[in-house]
């Protein structure tokens, strides 16, 4: 009985941690359009030499290669923009792959961030003409 309780407790703890993690990622990502095959599946941050560093994991749920575009909006501790609009950066993720993208903040003033992400399939409907490849 006590073993069962411990197992149940552990399972609940894991579920809570996973839920909290998912909530954290969701609060840091702004998808433009409904995310289709590419999703931000992992996110880690740390400060190196006073600069915020991010490791963003982008997972492709499809079997075919998928293209997406991302950029980071950096803010200071008061919520003001700490940097100008970044250029959109293309990223290619192979079928089933989880790609790790390493990003460094442009300035020590950047204390927080929001990832803007758009699937190539949503680019035309939300961002204008799709880039030609």
């Amino acid at each position: 009985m006590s073993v069962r309780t411990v197992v149940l407790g552990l399972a609940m703890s894991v579920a809570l941690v996973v839920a909290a993690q998912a909530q954290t990622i969701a609060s840091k990502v702004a998808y433009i359009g409904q995310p289709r095959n590419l999703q931000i599946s992992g996110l880690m941050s740390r400060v190196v030499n006073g600069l915020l560093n991010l490791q963003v994991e982008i997972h492709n749920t499809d079997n075919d290669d998928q293209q997406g575009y991302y950029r980071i909006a950096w803010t200071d501790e008061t919520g003001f923009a700490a940097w100008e609009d970044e250029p959109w950066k293309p990223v290619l993720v192979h079928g089933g792959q989880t790609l790790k993208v390493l990003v460094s903040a442009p300035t020590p003033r950047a204390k927080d961030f929001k990832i803007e992400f758009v699937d190539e399939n949503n680019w035309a409907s939300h961002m204008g003409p799709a880039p030609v490849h």
Partner: protein
Amino acid sequence: MSANKGTIMKLSASKIAVALVLAGLLGGCANSTPTVGSGNVKYGDSKAVEGVTNEFGSTDLQTIAESMSRSLAQFAAGYGNRPLVTIAEVKNRTSEYIDTRSITDSIRTQLLKSGTMRFATDIAGMQNQTDELARQNTSGLYKDSTTAKTGKMEGAKYRIEGAITSIVKKNSDVKDVYYKFSLIMTDIQAGTIEWADEKEIRKTSAR
């Protein structure tokens, strides 16, 4: 009390009338936009991904400048004080025309804005710098207290230089372009390379 109330009501009515007139005027103004021309010219998003052709484009320039400046800023932030550097040449070893100066200008701008590095006048800006110094010191037009003295310029501790190369392959169906932008930072006195990084870009298009 009621007289006051009447005055307030009267004022409110006049204010409402003025507000209505202003709203009408503004509404009238809203029909015109502050533009000139027939409207067939549109401003686009300068940060959008450009894929008109697979030659070197604005997205490549922006991506390279951002990647290099972030890497350099991360390295420079490790120093206690902001290192003084100068940008030397970035050689274009590709088969197409690329304004490498524009890339290094963007890198320098981003690093200065980040507050992690200082930049000494580079070779390209030296003529203007010495001309101005000479003008202030030899023309006799300036107060001594405000004249920039000669012999006070700071020498850079580090020099940044690099190259961009490309490999182009094509067949009847596909054209593939691979760019590699390499940058190094050298300690000028010691002659040692203290930092280096690369940015690779692959662009493929159907023919």
